[in-house]
């Protein structure tokens, strides 16, 4: 009798396993054509200036060029960093001919804010706190059949790696606790210094903190623009779009290096994924 009981138990265990582990994409079969669902295009851009400028936040005079870059690349959702406040968002949305809706994060104690813009009309917006700073996220449906998509815009501390680590940890925890079934992207300027050769002396543990923060993000997400190259001046790759590991297929990742205007030190990062 016990072999039958064992086989029944193993069969039920496997069924429970199959229910528990949820595949986010349907199987693609050998020698069958690759299937591609609708394509979602995301862009992140820190539109502030380099730190040595008198005002390193975004400049209103640049917003027309920012809007042009957005319109030319036609992303479905945009994460922006280092705006001065709601006035700049209003100017930007006007320059975008009201094709996007957007909100900014609460300023908190900072003098600059993050923003998120979405093309679809029925988007919901919410802000979230991480290490005393605020980020902002948009939740929307890309099409009628598509799952809920969340894009969060975040900006980590530029000067203290230990703070970046805490901030990243809290943003990642917030993102991975979004409702089951939704596809979450976290985009923004995380300021990670991951090149050990640049930080190889014994008086700082920046590389350690940043690599741990980056590793934590990679534990749950995928760095979608990893192969796209540097995103800021001085050969730095500090702007990221983290996305789900399995449920989307990366179709394009590009740093738009001709898009910078004024004394901006970052370039926009554009990512296109198949849902």
């Amino acid at each position: 009798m016990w072999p039958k009981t064992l086989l029944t138990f193993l069969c039920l265990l496997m069924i429970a396993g199959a229910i528990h582990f949820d595949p986010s994409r349907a199987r693609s079969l050998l020698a069958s054509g690759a299937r591609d669902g609708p394509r979602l295009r995301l862009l992140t851009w820190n539109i502030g200036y380099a730190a040595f400028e008198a005002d390193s936040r975004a400049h209103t005079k640049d917003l027309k060029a920012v809007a042009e870059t957005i319109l030319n690349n036609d992303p479905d959702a945009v994460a922006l960093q280092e705006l001065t406040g709601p006035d700049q968002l209003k100017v930007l949305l006007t320059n975008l001919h009201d094709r996007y809706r957007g909100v900014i994060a609460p300023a908190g104690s900072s003098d600059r804010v993050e923003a998120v813009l979405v093309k679809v009309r029925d988007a919901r917006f919410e802000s979230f706190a991480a290490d005393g700073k605020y980020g902002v996220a948009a939740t929307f449906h890309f099409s009628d059949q598509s799952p809920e998509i969340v894009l969060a815009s975040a900006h980590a501390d530029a000067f203290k790696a230990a703070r970046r680590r805490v901030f990243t940890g809290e943003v990642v925890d917030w993102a991975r606790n979004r409702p089951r079934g939704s596809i979450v992207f976290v985009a923004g300027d995380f300021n990670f210094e991951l090149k050990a050769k640049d930080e190889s002396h014994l008086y700082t543990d920046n590389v350690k903190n940043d690599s741990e923060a980056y590793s934590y993000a990679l534990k749950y997400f995928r760095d979608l623009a990893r192969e796209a190259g540097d995103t800021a001046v001085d050969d730095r790759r500090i702007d990221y779009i983290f996305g789900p590991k399995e449920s989307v297929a990366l179709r394009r990742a590009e740093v738009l290096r001709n898009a910078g205007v004024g004394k901006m030190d970052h370039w926009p990062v554009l990512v296109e994924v198949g849902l």
Partner: protein
Amino acid sequence: MFTQLKLESQKLIRSRSFLLSFCSLAIFVALMLWGFYSYAERKAGEQVTSQFKYTYESKSYFNGLTFALYSVMFSFSLLIPIFVAMVGGAQIAGERQTGTLRMICVRPISRISLILSKFLVVAGYTYLLVAFFIGLNLLVGLCFVGWGDLQLYPGALNLVDEPGKLLRDEALQRFAYASLTGTWALLVIAAIAMLFSVLFESASTATIATLALYLMFLIIGRVEFFENLRPYFFTTDMDFWRDVFKPEVPWDSFRHYGSICGAYIFGVLLLGVVIFDRKDITS
């Protein structure tokens, strides 16, 4: 049980189908090698076959690992299942056909032990077959094509969505994993063959019924009209074994489909065990 396992293993090793399956796979590898050489010759001229791996645009793309990957992928769906179905289908029905089943069943071992030991032997055979095939491909790849990293591109294999790479040692490790995942996937066929072996009187009927069922789902799964039915075919779930070759293994998907295969294996085997336990053996 151990004596039974030993006896069943000896029986399998002495059977012609055992040797036939290994020889056929060796011939397949030779044909694959010839096919790749002639393809390169046709595409790039006769002089290039002396430096086969340099006939591609990317000098590091084609190597022994790429050869092994293509060979394993293409044979897995159509060639290896035939041998697994053949051996699995012969287990009970073959004994019945030769008139030895009744004699075995009067020995003081339970029918359940008999069928389970037969299944375990088939599982061991399946692993040997897959491991032999992968090992042979790697060996032939190493000797005739050369070593290197395994570069993956979206294309005929439909394995990855974007270009990726596995370093040589990592790729070899993935081939080792593939021998396990491939065996697990093929055990679904083995379990079905065992069930049919219990149900049908002759080994050939059991084998053909298994292959017919497998090929029917495999073909229908690739026809556009039946796209909505595809998730319900066991052949779709069996394809999970290839995921170990992806640079980033999609673990959730891997475990999901692996578990479904497990449910098929144990569920079908249980059914076979129950039927065999109650079956009136008259032959």
